[in-house]
């Protein structure tokens, strides 16, 4: 187990390690913010904007990687913003889970950012696409790093505002309709979150997550047990809408396929994962009073989410809608880890979230290439991609097989970890559901393969003219990066899983988190 540094109550400015910690924790928020502002100010020049955006995304990735290494070496890191001591000020905290999620944001930002450069039209770029893209990343990274529940709400809103505009940017009719549903459901979720925050503050008198965990671990459910469970359910509803779990997911398939593919991929890779992150954070740190009730409920929701998502996907004949339903189904697996609630299950969930975000973003990008070539996402009108684009077909297969959980790709090990954790705790029903859903996932991936790649080009389309004049390597390179990560995660599953397991152990032991934020004895 890595050592946890005890924090002194006062800062020693000369201390270099302290300085590094302060910088490292704020960088994943500062870099996207600076990039977004520069992109906003340089809106006149499209080429400078694009350069700034790319540099920003790659710098974010580098900073995130550095943060992961630092947290791996030195344990949970915390910094008090504005130098206000912990329960009073806003704390930024990075444990392994947070750091990995920030790294995930960095990877997706870099890959989808590259894809945006070739796929997003000039009109959207002039309207501030790059600026919004980085504001979204700022919100996402802030949500992953904050140690304060109200601050989490603020980051959620930053992220949502940026995503609202990205969703509606362009103003096509479908986008408008999708955006209205997306905005409405997310605002309802925010209102629920806010109400829950108010009630939680009334009970505990603090919203610092570590302080909440400390207070509730002490008096343990003796005070207001009913109210605590109600609050837990309110938070579950609020985050559940954002994470798109059963039965709160209907906004997702109605909206995720409407914006440009790069935006879809970014949302698919990151946004629902922020909801899952918040669920895992809150239900491993704060709401542990009635685990038998809340976490069993999460397990039931997880199973239903998997099944309803994949059944929705099986019925679809549109490339992106089908993938949208799979997002929901995969959220179920991540929640399964939380519901089982052991260190290895949570480790499996961390591994799974990482794997699925990358595979899913990659699949969305593949659908974008198909759409670019055929001007449609309708699987019935696609075809012959294996013949004309063997490279694209290979990249699709890597991500699709990874998603379905075929060895040796990352998805297999992610699901193996979850299934093993389920068997260890005797949760046979959820294991059976997970395996069944896995088969259906394979089936719908094969459906895409059969329709879009394998079958001959349908006669009536005749739109392969789009093939000429496109330097497709620019489109394929970001997909190749994501696929390569998928493969590496699968081949190096041992060390990667060990890492995830450490993250799971940290999550199961809230005292480490409390100690890192509040110091020795609060």
């Amino acid at each position: 187990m890595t050592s946890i540094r005890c924090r002194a109550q006062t800062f020693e400015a000369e201390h270099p390690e302290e300085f590094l910690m302060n910088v490292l924790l704020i960088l994943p928020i500062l870099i996207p913010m600076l990039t977004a502002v520069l992109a906003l100010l340089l809106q006149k020049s499209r080429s400078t904007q694009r350069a700034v955006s790319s540099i920003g995304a790659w710098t974010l990735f580098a900073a995130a990687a550095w943060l992961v290494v630092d947290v791996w070496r030195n344990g949970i890191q915390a910094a008090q913003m504005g130098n206000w001591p912990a329960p009073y000020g806003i704390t930024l905290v990075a444990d392994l889970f947070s750091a990995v999620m920030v790294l995930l944001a960095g990877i997706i930002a870099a890959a989808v950012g590259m894809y945006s450069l070739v796929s997003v039209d000039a009109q959207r770029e002039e309207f501030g696409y790059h600026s919004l893209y980085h504001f979204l990343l700022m919100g996402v990274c802030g949500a992953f790093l904050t140690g304060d529940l109200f601050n989490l709400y603020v980051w959620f809103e930053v992220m949502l505002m940026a995503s609202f505009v990205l969703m509606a940017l362009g103003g096509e009719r479908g986008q408008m309709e999708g955006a209205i549903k997306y905005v409405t459901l997310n605002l309802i979720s925010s209102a629920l979150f806010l109400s829950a925050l108010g009630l939680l503050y009334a009970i505990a008198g603090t919203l610092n997550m570590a302080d909440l965990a400390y207070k509730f671990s002490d008096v343990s459910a003796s005070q207001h047990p009913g109210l605590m469970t109600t609050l837990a359910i309110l938070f579950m509803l609020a985050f559940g809408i954002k994470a798109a779990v059963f039965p709160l997911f209907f906004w997702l398939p109605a909206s995720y396929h409407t914006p440009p593919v790069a935006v879809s991929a970014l949302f698919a890779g990151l946004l629902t994962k922020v909801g899952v992150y918040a669920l895992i954070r809150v239900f491993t740190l704060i709401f542990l009073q009635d685990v038998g009730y809340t976490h069993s409920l999460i397990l039931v929701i997880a199973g239903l989410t998997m099944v309803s998502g994949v059944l929705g996907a099986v019925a679809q004949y549109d490339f992106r809608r089908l993938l949208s339903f799979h997002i929901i189904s995969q959220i179920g697996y991540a929640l399964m880890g939380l519901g089982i609630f052991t260190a290895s299950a949570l480790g499996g969930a961390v591994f799974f979230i990482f794997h699925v975000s990358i595979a899913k973003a990659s699949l969305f990008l593949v659908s974008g290439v198909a759409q670019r070539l055929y001007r449609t996402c309708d699987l019935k009108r696609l075809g012959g991609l294996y013949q004309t684009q063997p490279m694209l077909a290979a990249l699709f297969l890597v991500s699709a097989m990874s998603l379905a959980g075929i060895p040796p790709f990352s998805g297999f090990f992610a699901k193996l970890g979850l299934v093993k954790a389920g068997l260890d705790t005797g949760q046979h029903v959820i294991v059976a559901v997970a395996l069944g859903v896995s088969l259906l996932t394979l089936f719908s991936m094969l459906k895409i393969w059969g329709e879009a790649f394998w079958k001959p080009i349908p006669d009536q389309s005749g739109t392969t003219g789009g093939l000429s004049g496109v330097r497709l390597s620019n489109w394929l390179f970001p997909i190749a990066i994501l696929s390569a990560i998928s493969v590496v995660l699968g081949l190096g599953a041992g060390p990667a899983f060990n890492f995830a397991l450490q993250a799971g152990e940290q999550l199961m032991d809230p005292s480490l988190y409390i100690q890192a934020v509040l110091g020795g004895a609060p």
Partner: protein
Amino acid sequence: MEVILAFVIGGLFALAIYMLLRRSLVKLLIGLALLSHAANLLIFTAAKLTRGRPPVIGMETAALEPPFADPLPQALILTAIVISFGVMAFALALAFRAYRSVGTDDLDQMQSTDV
């Protein structure tokens, strides 16, 4: 005072949900606005009401005398109001654009992206 506010909050939530369930886009937005007001008022009330005791240290005293209003919920509400101001402004603009591109504010007509 708490009892009165509790009824007001309950009423606001009920109104908000009623408005959210209507077919008109404009009424949906009114519902969302009411929902955020209800949530803000809930924070305000849940964190205990203290009247006429601002949490300001006077010139003569060194520390605050115990019965004083908690400033934190007010700061939270202020932040939430600012955020909902921005979100509502965006939502209004979005509704206007949607009305222009779809040609109606009837939500039942906006189902082309549904499953």
